[in-house]
């Protein structure tokens, strides 16, 4: 039974991936990619990675899908010169790709037995972090440096996106396409209060159950973008002071707690055992805000000159 489900999931994913890559119609390819992301989310559950499944559903299928559809809508107007690759290149590419896939498959079938694992170390060191979910403990305590750098990558990417704006647009608002459809307005009034609670709960519960700051922040970003789309909220000017503050609040508090670790616990990003959990909550609270705002603005794109907004 469960093997049948796995076979079906794997076959569907490969089919959708093939469609994404080879399908003739661009919009159908993007739709196939979003479905692929959602199936991949189910596969994460099947391989025992619930936290990754939530991230994939939120980011892989959800936000990336929205980003790609928006890009497709803007590119439709430009001439899409599709010059096919020559037959020779296609054959070479197929052979190279097949070679890489076969090599990886061979590696998968000849992995070392027994598999290396950090589970015993993780479980032995879980109690001092004050958390019950070892994935959250990895993100917030043992590998907190990775998580701090990941937030900085988000900020850098947002700066990169802003910096492709023409000079005249600098400091202005990103373009918002508004759709004042009655049903959408209703959804945008009804859903955000629920979504905000779910988003914050997703972060809070990640201490002991699957969830996390990134997954929760994504939900907040989606709620904001929904309200913007319905014309109920505005995107901020990228020069706005409160926006800049919201963006750096998370990484700044993270960095401050990290530096305090030198004094309190002897290492960068080390927490004294007695207050580990409160410190992690202190880091996560502004982090949700920063993640939500930066994700929403990354999807919204660079600012546009005033008249075009």
């Amino acid at each position, binding site marked *: 039974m469960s*093997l049948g489900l*796995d076979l079906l999931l794997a076959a569907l994913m*490969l089919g959708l*991936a093939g469609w*994404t*890559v080879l399908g003739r119609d*661009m919009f159908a*390819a993007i739709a196939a*990619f979003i479905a692929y992301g959602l199936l991949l989310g189910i*596969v994460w559950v099947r*391989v*025992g*990675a619930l*936290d*990754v499944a939530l*991230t994939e559903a939120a*980011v*892989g299928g959800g936000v990336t899908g929205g*980003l790609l559809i928006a*890009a497709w809508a*803007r*590119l439709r107007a430009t*001439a899409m*010169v*599709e*010059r*096919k*690759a020559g037959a020779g*290149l296609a054959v070479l*590419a*197929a052979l190279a*790709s097949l070679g*890489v*896939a*076969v090599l*990886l*498959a061979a*590696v*998968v*079938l000849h992995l070392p037995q027994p*598999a290396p*694992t*950090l*589970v*015993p170390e*993780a479980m032995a060191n879980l109690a001092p972090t004050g958390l019950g979910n*070892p994935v*959250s403990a*990895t*993100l917030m305590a043992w*590998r907190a440096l990775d*998580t701090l750098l*990941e937030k900085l990558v988000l900020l850098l*990417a947002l700066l*990169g996106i802003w910096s*492709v*704006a023409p000079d005249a647009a600098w400091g202005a608002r990103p373009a918002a396409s508004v759709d004042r459809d009655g049903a959408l307005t209703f959804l945008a009034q009804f859903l955000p209060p629920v979504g905000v609670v779910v988003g914050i709960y997703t972060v809070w519960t990640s201490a002991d159950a699957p969830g996390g700051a990134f997954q929760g922040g994504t939900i907040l970003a989606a709620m904001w973008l929904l309200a913007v789309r319905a014309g109920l909220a505005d995107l901020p000017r990228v020069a706005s002071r409160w926006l800049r503050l919201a963006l750096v609040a998370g990484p700044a508090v993270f960095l401050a707690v990290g530096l305090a670790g030198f004094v309190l616990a002897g290492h960068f990003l080390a927490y004294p055992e007695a207050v580990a959990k409160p410190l992690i909550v202190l880091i996560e609270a502004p982090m949700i805000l920063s993640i939500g705002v930066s994700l929403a603005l*990354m*999807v919204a*794109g660079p600012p546009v000159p005033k008249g075009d907004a």
Partner: protein
Amino acid sequence: MSADLYGLCGAALVGIGLYGLIVQPHPLRKILAFNILGGGVFLLFGVFARRGAALSLPGDPVPQALLITGLVVSFAATALAVALLLRLAAETGRARLDDE
């Protein structure tokens, strides 16, 4: 057993994504293909985490946490690539990489 199956699936996804990345001329298609390729790499890593299951845990939490970080960075790269592409299209009126 199912871990092996998804490992093979991940290997195939890498192959499919790589093929699309080379062959498809349209930049947005290349971004899609790159994300398929990335999905395959992530799935392989997830299978390695699954093989590390021990005690009461269904998988090794350390590679799982690294996967979450990886997904976030991959989204950031995709968003930046899309912004560059849209700017290129707005500037040249065309969405293509060669300059003929």
